[in-house]
């Protein structure tokens, strides 16, 4: 199955965006983002701490709805999902 990952702001600069990737059924959100982020050590360090946990400020969305980073490890991704990963917002 196929999902799309969108990074924004500094995460986008480090990891790119609109990444279409194939995943196997049962893949969890944390696992997916970890795999993609490891393509660039600086990008990985921007999102994850030294223990492999999300930095507390990281915001996740699945199809436009926020997913708590605590729940990401048990949230499966599904075919056609759009996953967004971004730092705290700074509009206005």
């Amino acid at each position, binding site marked *: 199955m196929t999902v799309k990952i969108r990074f924004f702001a500094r995460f986008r600069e480090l990891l790119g965006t609109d990444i279409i990737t194939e995943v196997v059924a049962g893949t969890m959100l944390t696992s997916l983002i970890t795999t993609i982020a490891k393509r660039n050590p600086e990008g990985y360090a921007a999102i994850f701490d030294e223990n492999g946990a999300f930095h507390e400020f990281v915001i996740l969305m699945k199809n436009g709805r926020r997913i708590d980073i605590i729940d990401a490890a048990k949230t499966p991704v599904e075919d056609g999902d759009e996953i967004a990963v971004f730092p705290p917002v700074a509009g*206005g």
Partner: protein
Amino acid sequence: MIAIQTDDVDIGDLITAAKRRGTGAVVVFDGVVRDDDITEMELEAYEDVATQELENIAKKATEQFKLLHVDIIHRIGRLSVGENILIILVTAGHREEAYAGSRFIIEAIKTGVPIWKKELTKDGGRWVPGEHGHGSGKPR
């Protein structure tokens, strides 16, 4: 009008279009690119989600403060010092509701709408830190 767009808008035209029967106060917030030793500012949005969030904020403000009209236009792309970034226009029967509604909207945008700013300088650029009010990415 709720929009995320690259183009600027004519605030005078917005004011004219917003006035209607019962309007007693119009409050305009105009956020502009400040001269903080930068050359330009680059703005980026998760557009679909950001637009939906702006619509939700406008609806909530309208209900809570009895606003008669709300416009929110947030610009993205590359902007020069002095250019408009964000225009919030609200109307109400009285000034108290108009001021409070406008303030509510800007504070909600600052903490909950996926938009980011990068200040471009002669030496490169720096992302404007966001407000860390989310707590584990949870909605406020």
